[in-house]
C-alpha cells in the first residue's frame, strides 16, 4: 500500500537529499541483484508493519512487493503484469498490487533497475491493516515455495493499543519471527544491534515529522501528499534504522527549513508551483500509473496538499510515536499496531479533522482506490463526518493504484476542477 518511487520517476526536488535517496536505492537494488553470489539473505515483506530494524540486525535484505508494484505502475508495466495474472485466473475484482506483483514474477521478476530480483529466503507476512497481505503471501508461497512467517497484528478497533494486542505481537516476534530469521541466517538474535538501529530510526523520524509539519506554514514549502510520498520512501521501506536514512532526513529537513526561510512553495515535476490558492488534506493512496498527470491536476490550479493519510501507512510518527531503543520488541509491536490503516474508522476521522484544523486546510479530498478496501470501505462516511465536524467541503474522486483501466484522466480532472472551483466560489460568496 505504500510508496517509494525511484528517481526514474519524476523527481520533485533535485536537491542533495534527492540525489542521496537515488544513490541509496541504486545501492540497495545492486545488493539485491548480487545476493545470489554474495549469499545475502532476502526477505520479502510489507510496508505497514515492516520490521526493517530487526531485519537489518540480521544483515537481511528486504524486498517490498508493494513498492515493486507501484514502481511497475510508474514504469507503465503494470497493465501487462495485471493482464498476465488475470490470464492465470485472477479476478478483475481484486487488488491490482497483488496481480501486478504476481505478473512481474511470472514475467521474470525484473525489478525497477532492470536487474532480476532474488527469490525470497523467507516471506515475512506482517499482516497489518490489510487482509489482502495474507492472500498475497499465500499466493507468493505457492510461487516461490519459500517458508512463510506470519506476524498477525490485531486491529486497533477501539482506537488504542491494548496490552493484550501488544503482548500478542511481542510474543509472535519472540517466538515466531526471530526464530525464523535465526533459521534462515544461521545467526543469533543480537538485541544490541537492534537497539542501535532503533536509535537511528528515532532520529530520522524526528526529522521527517518536522518536514511534514512544515506544511502548516503559508505558503507550504512542501506538498504533503505527492511530494511527501518521496519523503517517506526511505523510512517506509528498506532504510529505516540505517545511517543513510538518518543522513537523508537530516539533509531533507535542512532543505525544507531553507525553503521556509525563503518563503518558497513546493517544487513539482513541472517546476516550482505557482501561488498557493488551495490547501487540501488528502485521504487515500495516489494513483501511480498517471502519477505526474494526477499531481498536475492539483498544482496547475495552485492546490497544495498540506497533509495526507497515505503518508502514514508506514507509521504515524506525526502523532508522536518514536521507535524506542530501550524497549526494542515492544516498540516494534507498538509501531505495527499504530500504522494508519490499522486504525478504526472513528480514529481515522479524528486524524483527518485534526489535520484540517492544524494545517488550516480548505477541504478534504478523498481519492478512493478500487484496489484497497482497507482504505476505501467507509471513506464516503468519513468524508461526510469530516464535512460535518469542520464545516469544510469534501471532494471525492475514484481511481486505482496501478490499474490504468481504472484511471480516467478526464473524469478525475472533471471532479477536481469542480471541487476546487466550488471552494473558490464559496470563498468569494454570491457575488462571484
Amino acid at each position, binding site marked *: 500500500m505504500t510508496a517509494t518511487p525511484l528517481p526514474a520517476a519524476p523527481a520533485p526536488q533535485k536537491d542533495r537529499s534527492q540525489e542521496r535517496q537515488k544513490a541509496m536505492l541504486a545501492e540497495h537494488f545492486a545488493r539485491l541483484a548480487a545476493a545470489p553470489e554474495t549469499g545475502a539473505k532476502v526477505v520479502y515483506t510489507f510496508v505497514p508493519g515492516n520490521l526493517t530494524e530487526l531485519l537489518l540486525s540480521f544483515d537481511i535484505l528486504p524486498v517490498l512487493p508493494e513498492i515493486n508494484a507501484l514502481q511497475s505502475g510508474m514504469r507503465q508495466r503494470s497493465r501487462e503484469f495485471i493482464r498476465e495474472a488475470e490470464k*492465470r*485466473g*485472477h*479476478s478483475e*475484482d*481484486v*487488488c491490482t498490487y*497483488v496481480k501486478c506483483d504476481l505478473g512481474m514474477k511470472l514475467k521474470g521478476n525484473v525489478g525497477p533497475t532492470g536487474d532480476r530480483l532474488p527469490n525470497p529466503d523467507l516471506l515475512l*507476512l506482517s*499482516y497489518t491493516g*490489510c*487482509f*489482502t497481505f*495474507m*492472500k*498475497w503471501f*499465500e*499466493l507468493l*508461497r*505457492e510461487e516461490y515455495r519459500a*517458508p*512463510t512467517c*506470519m506476524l*498477525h497484528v*490485531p*486491529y486497533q*478497533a*477501539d482506537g488504542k493499543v491494548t496490552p*493484550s*494486542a501488544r503482548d*500478542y505481537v511481542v*510474543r*509472535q516476534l519472540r*517466538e*515466531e519471527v526471530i526464530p525464523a530469521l535465526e533459521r534462515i541466517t544461521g545467526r543469533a538474535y543480537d538485541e544490541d544491534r537492534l537497539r542501535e538501529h532503533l536509535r537511528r530510526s528515532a532520529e530520522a523520524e524526528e526529522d521527517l515529522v518536522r518536514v511534514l509539519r512544515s506544511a502548516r506554514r503559508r505558503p507550504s514549502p512542501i506538498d504533503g501528499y505527492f511530494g511527501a510520498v518521496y519523503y517517506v520512501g526511505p523510512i517506509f521501506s528498506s532504510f529505516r534504522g540505517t545511517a543513510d536514512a538518518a543522513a537523508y532526513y537530516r539533509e531533507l529537513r535542512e532543505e525544507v527549513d531553507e525553503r521556509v526561510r525563503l518563503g518558497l512553495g513546493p517544487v513539482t515535476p513541472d517546476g516550482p508551483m505557482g501561488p498557493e490558492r488551495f490547501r487540501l488534506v488528502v485521504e487515500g493512496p495516489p494513483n501511480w500509473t498517471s502519477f505526474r498527470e494526477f499531481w498536475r491536476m492539483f498544482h496547475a490550479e495552485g492546490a497544495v496538499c498540506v497533509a495526507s493519510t497515505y503518508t502514514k501507512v508506514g507509521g504515524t510518527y506525526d502523532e508522536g510515536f518514536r521507535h524506542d531503543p530501550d524497549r526494542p520488541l515492544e516498540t516494534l509491536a507498538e509501531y505495527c499496531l499504530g500504522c494508519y490503516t490499522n486504525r*478504526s*474508522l*472513528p480514529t*481515522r*476521522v479524528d486524524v483527518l479533522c485534526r489535520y484540517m484544523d492544524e494545517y488550516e486546510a480548505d477541504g478534504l479530498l478523498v481519492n*478512493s482506490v*478500487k484496489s484497497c*478496501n*482497507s482504505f*476505501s*470501505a*467507509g*471513506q*464516503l*462516511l468519513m468524508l461526510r*463526518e469530516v464535512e460535518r465536524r469542520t464545516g469544510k467541503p469534501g471532494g471525492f474522486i*475514484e481511481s486505482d493504484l496501478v490499474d490504468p483501466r481504472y484511471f480516467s484522466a478526464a473524469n478525475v480532472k472533471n471532479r477536481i476542477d469542480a471541487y476546487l472551483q466550488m471552494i473558490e466560489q464559496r470563498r468569494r460568496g454570491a457575488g462571484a
Partner: protein
Amino acid sequence: MVAPLNADQPAAAGAAPLQALVERARALSEDVQLEAVRAWKAAHPGRIAVGSLPVWAPRELIHAAGGLPVGVRGGGDGVEVVRGDAYFQSYICQLPRSTLELALDGSYDCLDGVIFPSTCDVIRNLSGMWQLLLPGKYVRYLDVPQSLREDLGGRFLEHELRTLRDELGQLAGAPISDDALRASIAAYDAHRRAIEDVYALRAATPWLAPSWELYLVLRAGDVLPVEEHTAMLREYRELAAASGRPMEDQARVVLTGAFCERPPLGLIQTVERSGCAIVDDDLALGLRFIRGDVAPPPDEDPLAALARAFLARGRRCPTMFLPDDAGQAKGEALVEDARRAGAEGVIFAAASFCDPALLDQPMTAKAVEAAGLPSTSFKYAENTGQFQPIREQTGAFADAIKIWSDA
C-alpha cells in the same frame, strides 16, 4: 441409474408436514427485518439480542448471557438499497450495503449490539461505520488470531473472548457463569451435530434433501433460538429422509466460495435445476465453522475450550491463513471434503468483489484441477436477478460431468 417407479407419485404421508416446515423456514429466512427477533424480545423481556456478521462468531457467549444470537447477513434480494449504496463505492460487495440499509431503516433497533468478526477489510471497516452511524450501540470487533499456535493465537483469542464475555455480561446485566457457558456450548454442540446430520443425509441422498430446501432451513437459524433451530433441523432430517422423493441422476458437486455474502435462493435452485446436486457447500459456514464438539471435560475452562476448538478444528476458509506446517493446503482440504462427500466436480461461486474468496480461488482451483476434479466458476451478488447465464453454465458443467463419468 433408474428412477423408481413411483416418480410421479406425491411423497405419501410425510409431504404436508415437510412442506409446512419448509414454508416456516422460508418465512424465517426472508425475515431480514427481524420480526422474529422483536417477537422473541417481547416474549422475553429484559433479555438481549446480539447480532453477528459472517463468518464465525462465538454465539455460545451470547446464548450464555441469556441472549438471542442473531445472524446479520444482509438483505438478500428482498431489500431496496438506497442509503446503503450512498456509503459504498461500486467496487465493494453487496452485503454491507443492504446490511447498512437495514441498520439505518431501524430494522436492527431490536439488536442490543453487533459483533463484527475479522472476516475481511470491508466487514472490519463496517464496524467503524456502525460506531459512527449508530452511536451508543454496542459494537465489538472480534479479532480472531491468524496464528494457530495455542500459546500465541490461542492466548490472544482467549483474551478476546474473555473481553467479549465480560461485555456481553454487562449488556445482559449479569456476568456469564462458567456453568451457563457450558450449557450453551452443549446446546451448540447439539446444533452442530444436527447440521452435520442433515449435510450427511444430503451427501448420501441429495434428492431427498434438495439444497434449496436445506438452504432455507439453515437460514432460519439466523433468527431462531438455537434449541428451536436444532429441533427444526432434526425434524427436517427425519421428514426429508422419509419423504420418498424419487432418486435423480444428477452431477454431484461441491459449491464453494459463498461463505459470507449469500447467494439468492433462486441461484441455488438454478444450479440444482440445471442438473447439479450440491452435496457439500460453505453456505452459512459460520453455523458449522468448528468441526465436532467443543464441550470440555468438567475440570476444564469452557472459554479456553472454545478458543482451542477454534484453533484446532476451525474450518480453513479463505479468511484464514494456514501456516507452512499446517500439513494440508486449503486446496487439498477442499479436495478432501469433495471426496468425502462423493462429489464429481466443484463449483466456485464467489460474491463479486469478495477479496478472500476471489484471491484464494486460483490456488484452490489449481489443487482441484491437480486432483482431476472438474470445476467451473461464476460470481454472484446477494441480489443477483439473472440466472440464465448461470443455468447455461452449470447445465453444461453437469452434462460434461455425466458424459465424463459415463465414459
